Structure formats: C-alpha cells, structure tokens
C-alpha cells in the first residue's frame, strides 16, 4: 500500500524531526509525521512520499508540572489509561476516555498526539481534555501553546500547519473553595471500544450551598470539531446544581450541536443522544459530588 514511499526518517530529537520534515517539504512531495500509525496506515494515502517517524522522540511521558500535568505527544492510549496520575485526575475521565479508544492493540499503538492531530470529530480524548481546559504545545519555528478549543479547525484540520504537536498541558483543576469538583465521561458506540456515535465529558464545581460555581461540558462527533457547549455551561453556573438544572443544560447543549447524518447515526439521533449523554454526565457529576436530592 505504501510502495511509493521513498523515505522513512527516524530522528531521535524534536529538532531533527522538524529539520527533516522541513527539508523534505522544500524538495516537494507529500509527507507526514507518523507515530502509532493507527489512523495514517488505515487512511492509506498513496500520495505520501516520505514519513518522519516520531517513535524515537523523548515524548512518551506523563508528569506533574506545577499544579497541573504534562503529557508527551507519543504517550499511547494505554499509557494514559494506566497512568496513576491521570486515574486520580478529575475522577479519571481522561484515563477512562483513553481506555475506550479502540481495542487493546490499538491502545498500545495510538498516541495522544496522533489522536488530536488526526482531528476526527469523534476523537475520544477531546471531550475530557476540553473539559479540563487543556492546551497543546506545538513545535515549529519556536514553540507555541494553543488552547485545545482553538486547535481544531474542521474535520481532519488543525492549527498545526505542518508543525509538530509535542505535548498536552492540563492546568490545575478549578479551585473548589470548600465545595466539591466532580467529573464524568460518557460515550455512545456500538461497543465501548468502537468509534463514538456521540461522546461527552462534563466537569462541575459544586459549592457548599449546592450552587454550581464552575462548569464545563464538551461533546464529540456532533459537529465538524469537538466542541464546548458554552451556553449550557452558562445555564449551570450560579444556580443550584440539581435535576432541573441538569435537564435544562442538557437540552441547551443539544441545541449547540451541529451533527451530520452518516453510516453510524442520523443527525437527529446524534442531537437527541447529545442531550442524553450530557444529562448522564451531569447526573454522574451530581452523584459524585454527593449531593443527590
């Protein structure tokens, strides 16, 4: 399938990877960075003439940084799924999402950077990372940090522009000021490990008086890019976090989607399931915050 590929570069530093990619780009022909290969190989693009392999770069790590976390771009889904630091973060929603990103073999191959850079609307890591206010660090001429919400530009389109996603940065979770933070990840697929028909993540801070003081709701597979349901979030903040608020926010979130009909589901079904999954996510947050009533 890749018989027309004429070069496979195996750099061991980010600088060398960028240099090789830039040199190939100048000499013409199409090429890509490759890591786990789980999207690139399946896509089978026969116009590719060179690949720059990222698997030797020192980017496979999950570590604390400041009050937050830094995840290297070539960390695999399995790395995230099993990282103790991430299982303890935000009720484990990022580790949980990584654990649904394909079969065990796929999760041993597919990387965080690839999952985001591929920019599938159904990307499983995007909803939890959006809910966590994550950013990506991009290396090119210099380094820049881009909030994930501004990284996705369309279906399979990102802000990378030939540069390299090297790290995901997750800031410290919101201050709870004596209240409780609670999080949830939800995914609807034929099986848990299948591509999502809809996926969703939510995070809330519930103050001691039962009011929601902070909220994040993110959805995938219901628009050209993973999205934050900002109007639904705004509905929650400042009000008692209860079943009525959850129903109202879930309905509003569904209105913020722009789903398509495809082989997996109709647009109408995706919109309705957006409502259902956001309601489930917020209900789980309510239970986890210990304020069911």
């Amino acid at each position: 399938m890749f018989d027309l590929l004429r070069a496979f570069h195996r750099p061991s530093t980010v600088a060398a990877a960028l240099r090789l990619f830039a040199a190939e780009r100048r000499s013409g022909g199409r090429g890509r960075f490759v890591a786990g290969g789980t999207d690139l190989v399946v896509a089978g693009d026969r116009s590719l003439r060179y690949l720059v392999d990222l698997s030797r770069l020192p980017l496979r790590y999950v570590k604390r940084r400041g009050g937050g976390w830094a995840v290297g771009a070539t960390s695999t889904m399995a790395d995230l799924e099993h990282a103790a630091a991430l299982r303890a973060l935000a009720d484990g929603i990022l580790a949980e999402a990584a654990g649904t990103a394909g079969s065990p073999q796929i999760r041993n191959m597919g990387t965080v950077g690839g999952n985001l850079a591929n920019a599938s609307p159904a990307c499983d890591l995007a909803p939890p990372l959006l809910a966590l206010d994550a950013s990506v660090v991009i290396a090119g001429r210099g380094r820049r940090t881009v909030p994930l919400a501004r990284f996705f530009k369309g279906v399979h389109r990102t802000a990378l522009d030939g540069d390299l996603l090297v790290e995901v940065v997750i800031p410290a979770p919101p201050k709870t000021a004596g209240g409780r933070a609670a999080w949830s990840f939800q995914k609807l697929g034929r099986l848990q490990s299948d591509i999502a028909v809809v996926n969703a993540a939510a995070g809330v801070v519930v103050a001691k008086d039962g009011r929601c003081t902070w909220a994040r709701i993110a959805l995938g597979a219901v628009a050209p890019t993973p999205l934050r349901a900002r109007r639904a979030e705004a509905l929650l903040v400042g009000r008692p976090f209860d079943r009525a608020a959850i129903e109202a926010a879930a309905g509003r979130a569904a209105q913020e989607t722009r789903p398509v009909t495809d082989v997996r589901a109709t647009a109408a079904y995706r919109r309705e399931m957006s409502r259902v999954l956001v309601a489930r996510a917020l209900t789980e947050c309510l239970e986890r915050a210990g304020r069911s009533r």
Partner: protein
Amino acid sequence: MNQLVIAVTVNGEARRWTVAPGDLLLDVLRREGYWGVKKGCETGECGACAVLLDGAPINSCLMFAAQAEGRNISTIEGVAERDRLDPVQEAFLDHGAVQCGYCTPAMVLVTEALLARSPHPSEAEVREALGGVFCRCTGYKKPVEAVLAAAAARAAPSKPRAAKGAPAKRAAGRKGARR
C-alpha cells in the same frame, strides 16, 4: 528505493532485515517466515496479525517495519518450547477453543500478555484482553474458558505434557477437544 537495514529481536533471536520505507511489519514478518502472524483485515480491526512488541500486543498491519528497529517482537512461533506447548496453548486445546485456527495465534499472544501483567484475571479482564481479536467461527465462550483455565493452571502448575507424538491420546482424553 531507499532500503533500510533494521535490527530487531524476534522470539529472542537477533535478526537483521532489509526493508523498504513503506513495508509494514506484518508483511515483513510473513516474508521472513513467521507465518503464524495472520493477514486478516489489514485495517487494524480484526487483530489476526497481533504480535507482542516489547511484551504488549499490537496489530502488525498498522506498524511500519522500520519502526521495529531495536524492539523485541514475540510471535506464536516463539511460544512453545521446542515440541512442548505452552500452558496457554494446552488450555486452548483442552477447552476446544480452536476451530479454523486463524485467530488462534493472536488469541494466544494476547493471553500471554494478559497473564504476564495480571496472573489472576477476572472474566471481565479476559474478555477485554481478547476483545481486539475477532473470531468468526464461533463465539468467545471457549477461548474465555481456556484463558481462565490457563491462569488457574499457572497458579498450580501440573506436569507438562508433550505436544507431539500423542495426538490420538489427546483427542481421546480431553473433554471437548476436537482436532
């Protein structure tokens, strides 16, 4: 074409391969005689091509051979010790977990990885571990039973049995075993 020479370890043995930039690991393994690595969907879904890369299951149809440089690969050919089957292979025979056999090498390998990581897996863990290898002959009941039995056998090892030379005895002596 700019050929690449890569050094890999396959089933504990050092190998040097000359590969093309676009060669996939699955195709190179089969070219090199590891025919137990099966070619199925070639899109990473069926898992028939699974091998262990540094002990972890991966689908060799999705990996470029050049990416295997310096890595340890385990295939089904390395599981039995000479003519002595591994307890996992024995359990698959004992429990009738093999029909056409196409998915069996991958099932055995993902089981080896599971038991190395989790010697006493729950049934849910077993189903999760086998979930990336599709069997189109039958269900997954017998493979799941086989893996649970292999885990139990490892916990209390009995005397090993010869793999070759006694096929009639095997077929006659085992509950549910079919050739």
